[in-house]
């Protein structure tokens, strides 16, 4: 009985037996994760170590796999938005908007300019929260707790803006097909203005704390470097790829939601190491702030916040209670009885970590025939063993947090 409970011998055990060092010391196995505070999520890596150096790593993923693709095949379209929230939960509005844009591409819906600008603002706010988390946690992992506590209050401020827009904070389920569920309140714009005033000096201070900090530089420069060629071969996108010097950004390559109206640069790094990834994210926060300011300045007059698509957009609640026609539409939309063409759509947006793509196949019924999520984290995390080979154990932690692997997106 007892041998049934024993796990089969790991392939590293054989390596350890064969490779005894000359001085009599031997290699060892270290189990990193799956639940350890330093991994910031559920990641298991079995490491083969020579003292403090990592010789090989074997990642195991799937600990929070929730079968979103299968669930999506059994849900009408608007019920899939809450699933997208839970992929990259650090920047859920980007996922929500990406999903609505996929559907709008499917149904050929033109969203009013003002709603597109509002979407740009909320997506850039989401990008800022994503980068705040990644960079400040990277600080924590190198031993600097102060910066993390300092900038995290601004993530809270952004969540308050989300709350004004849609009522939720982390898993936002924001927006509707064709725009937003309601117009942004004056309070939302006021909070946004306060944020735009208070956040930049704090972010500048945060940058000053780290960018020329001797300890931080020693811990991050040349740690976890990846060349542009191998980053592209491994399917990197987003800040991690740009840190290696490739200026690919979906917002520029295939502008969606009127990104072509705004002036911004794509910050790129050079060596693709942890320090460059940190700097690229820092610079992207400044660009995001600039995009938000431009969007506010160019915001079209009026109060359009959704497209006129009565077949897909829920009617106002008071009409539903008092008007037969509205009640019928409400019922049809909630039950998923809306006209859907047969098509195959791929729509990509620039998520917090790279190209977030939705590959949607419809067969005309109320649910997708197949929905595949192109999740940037899942794709670039496979390079992690390659990146930590030869590094120290403490570097492995720093590399993991600089890659910003979000467990929800990794496992979907």
């Amino acid at each position: 009985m007892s041998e049934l409970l024993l796990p089969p011998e790991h392939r590293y055990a054989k390596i350890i037996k064969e490779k005894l060092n000359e001085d009599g010391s031997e290699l060892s196995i270290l189990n990193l994760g799956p639940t350890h505070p330093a991994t910031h999520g559920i990641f298991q890596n079995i490491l083969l170590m020579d003292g403090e150096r990592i010789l090989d790593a074997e990642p195991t993923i799937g600990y929070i796999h929730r079968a979103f693709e299968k669930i999506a095949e059994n849900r009408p379209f608007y019920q899939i938005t809450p699933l997208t929230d839970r992929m990259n939960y650090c920047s859920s509005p980007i996922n929500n908007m990406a999903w609505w844009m996929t559907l709008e591409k499917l149904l050929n819906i033109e969203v009013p300019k003002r709603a597109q600008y509002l979407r740009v603002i909320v997506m850039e706010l989401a990008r800022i929260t994503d980068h705040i988390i990644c960079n400040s946690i990277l600080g924590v992992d190198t031993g600097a707790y102060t910066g993390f506590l300092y900038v995290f209050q601004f993530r809270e401020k952004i969540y308050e803006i989300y709350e004004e827009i849609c009522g939720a904070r982390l898993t936002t389920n924001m927006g509707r097909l064709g725009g937003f569920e309601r117009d942004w309140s004056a309070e939302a714009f006021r909070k946004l203005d306060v944020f735009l005033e208070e956040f930049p000096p704090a972010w500048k201070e945060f940058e000053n704390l780290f960018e020329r900090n001797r300890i931080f530089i020693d811990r991050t420069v040349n740690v976890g470097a990846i060349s542009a060629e191998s980053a592209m071969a491994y399917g990197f996108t987003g800040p991690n790829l740009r840190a290696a010097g490739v200026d690919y950004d979906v917002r520029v390559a295939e502008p969606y939601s009127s990104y072509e109206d705004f002036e911004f640069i794509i910050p790129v790094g050079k060596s693709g190491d942890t320090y460059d990834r940190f700097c690229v994210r820092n610079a992207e926060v400044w660009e995001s702030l600039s995009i938000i300011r431009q969007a506010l300045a160019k915001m079209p007059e009026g109060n359009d916040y959704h497209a006129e698509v009565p077949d897909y957009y829920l009617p106002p609640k008071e009409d539903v209670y008092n008007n037969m026609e509205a009640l019928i539409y409400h019922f049809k939309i909630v039950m998923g009885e809306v006209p859907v063409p047969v098509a195959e759509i791929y729509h990509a947006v620039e998520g917090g970590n790279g190209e977030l793509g939705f590959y949607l196949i419809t067969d005309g019924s109320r649910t997708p025939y197949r929905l595949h999520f192109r999740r940037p984290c899942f794709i670039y995390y496979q390079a992690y063993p390659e990146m930590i080979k030869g590094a120290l154990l403490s570097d492995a932690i720093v590399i993991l947090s600089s890659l910003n692997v979000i467990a929800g997106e990794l496992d979907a």
Partner: protein
Amino acid sequence: MALENTQIQDKLTETFGESVMHFRQERDIFTFEVSSDTITPVILFLKNEETLNFHFLTDLCGIHYPDSDVNEQFAVVYHLHNWVENKRIRIKSFIHGENPEIKSVSNIFLTANWMERETYDFFGINFIGHPQLKRILNMDEMISFPMRKEFPMEDSGRTDKDDRFFGRTPSNC
């Protein structure tokens, strides 16, 4: 000059003839089908041919079509992207329903490694030549392939929840 669909089509039919077929513009992405036995040469050609230069594999996934002919019950879909010309293409390759297998492209694109493992995990498609084809998101002990259409989403023995009242029945979803 931007890369035109006809240019891609001409080059492929010139080199591979009949095994590349059904060229069409599917909304914003140029789509075509490749027979499963020539998938690796076609993708290698698309990647290395100088004028085409599809150097980035954006996505790879499987689809199950249980109602189709037995030779075409599974499809593997490749999304390739040429960043220089900013051109995307989609390649579909249909494979047999009972013994689904296709050659692996993980030696052409390193990134295909986990994408193919995911596809194997959920559809049971065997990628020949893959260095480590085992389950990735589901547990190793699992014996079924959950993204196949016949696999029920929920335990069919549940009595506390009647899907008819939620607008979902096996025939309409």
